[in-house]
């Protein structure tokens, strides 16, 4: 699928390093810095259907534009955010990374990846999430900005215990 030419054009190592750094910002709870990785009109989205085309066709687990993202991050810093007392410790594994040889019009690069996330809060059982990511990235200086991070959980149409932090 991936042509050599496109692999050369977008150094897959650079894309990987960007995704790993993005995951680390979440794991280290640098939420403000993480949000800055998004473009001004960037969106973080976790749908409830595998083939979901829009956040208005069906409900979503998350649909954060930058305004909602800012509200969420601010809330995560509130001293009385009960859902994070105790806090969530997470590890994001990002793997099976592929660059789409034909990116859509609204992105310079589209990346597909698989993920697993482990979450642990003191006094509770660990929780596991798995699924696929789709990233739409835009070139920004020497690096990238995220126009879309879509996290489709393998069980996205199932029921979830509460989720306080980004997958």
């Amino acid at each position, binding site marked *: 699928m991936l042509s050599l030419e496109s692999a050369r054009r977008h150094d897959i190592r650079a894309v990987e390093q960007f995704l790993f750094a993005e995951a680390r910002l979440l794991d280290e709870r640098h939420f403000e810095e993480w949000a800055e990785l998004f473009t001004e009109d960037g969106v973080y989205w976790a749908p*409830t259907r595998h083939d979901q085309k829009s956040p208005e066709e069906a409900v979503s687990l998350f*649909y954060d534009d930058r305004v909602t993202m800012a*509200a969420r991050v601010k*809330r995560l810093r509130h001293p009385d955010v009960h859902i994070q007392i105790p806090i969530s410790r997470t590890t994001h594994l990002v793997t099976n990374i592929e660059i789409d040889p034909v990116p859509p019009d609204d992105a310079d690069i589209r990346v597909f990846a698989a993920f697993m996330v482990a979450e642990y809060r003191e006094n509770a059982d660990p929780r596991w999430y798995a699924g696929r990511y789709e990233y739409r990235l835009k070139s920004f200086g020497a690096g990238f900005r995220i126009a879309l991070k879509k996290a489709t959980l393998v069980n996205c149409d199932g*029921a979830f215990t*509460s989720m306080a932090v980004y997958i």
Partner: protein
Amino acid sequence: MTDIREACAKTTPRISEAEIRALVRPDRIHRRLYTDPDLFDLEMERVFGQAWILVGHDSQVPKPHDFVTTRIGKEPVIMSRDANGAVHVVANRCAHRGLQVCATESGSTRHFKCPYHGWSYRSDGSLASMPNAVSYGGRDAIADPANGLRPVARMAIYRGFVFASLSPTGPSLDEYLNGIKTSIDDLVDRAPDGEIAFVGGCSRYIVRANWKTQIDNGVDLHHATYTHVSTLDADGRQFSRHGGGPRILIDGKRSIDWEPFGVVGFPYGHGYQGRPPVETLPSGPIYEDYVSRLVAKHGEERTKAILKYDRFNSVVYPSFTFQAFGQHVRIVRPTAVDKTEIRVYPVALKGAPEAYNRAAIRSLAATHSAASMIQTDDIEVFERAQRGLASTSNDWVLFAGHPGKGEEWHEGGWRGSGTSEFVSRIQYAENWVSYMCGGQGNAVA
């Protein structure tokens, strides 16, 4: 009609009537109501096996042969629409060896076919065919209703809301809903076409706590000040729910006075919270288009009455809550004594602009999904309650605020002060006890 419960004999409760009555006092309930698995089993049989339970909305099965599967308490059921357009609620249980004949959440099929021996049922639940029928007595066996998917004892629909009771006797749905019909009307009348639909999927969250924590919360305005404090900006207003629009004013700093908002309660344990604390009505071109469609239908004056928000959450005891402000219905599905699944359905107002209904679907991600910023606060306090109630240091959970029922209310029932806990008192002392002692609800303990 055949009683669905014929299929499984009633168990003998391990808890006596005297013991049940001792667990509930007028202003408090024993912690065991949240923690005792035997009481949970009995609730499923006597509360969810007697009361009118919301199965779904008829818009979930718009065309002949459409179906959805769900549960009433522990009992798996199918809601389907038959070839002639009638809605049925039948047990999801093969009359032969007891298998669930339908394994998917929703879909469309002319026949539910059992994977074990091929018994095949029509979309009205009747048996269509069985292989080797002659061994069961031939055509007579196929025609025998006992060999069909058993219908629930009673089924009734109010404005599209499909209710079932597993008991052949008890109040009619009309009698049961009484004053809370005003809340259902308040929601459905907002649709220019006078009908709503469940479209936009379903947001499902799990609470690792007893189902009653969610019901208790549905008539609790007071908690918002504390539970949802992290959603507030410095000025005491909640984040904007979808790209502008009215914002909820909770004002954690100056401690909003909830008393004037009021809370309304009705017989059978239903109730609603007084008006949502919003400062303005929505605005913008889409909202104006929506309003103009209502005006075209009803005129200015009636439209104004339809659009005013005089209630926030409504609770129909014991199976669902809903609100017009957030445009959704939440069905409460008990799973175990300490586990509950909630299904949140966005509500489309038929005849409203598409964009208006789509915005309601989108906003649920921020407010009521498993990852939302409001519902997760509530989930956390429900789960914290469940863990705290493991303590044997104190047997009682209090619902003592503002004794009495307040004033008589013009919709029937009563209206109490905003932080009054009287609706919960009606639920426990007049209904839970009645059901649990084998009654049909609405009887003072």
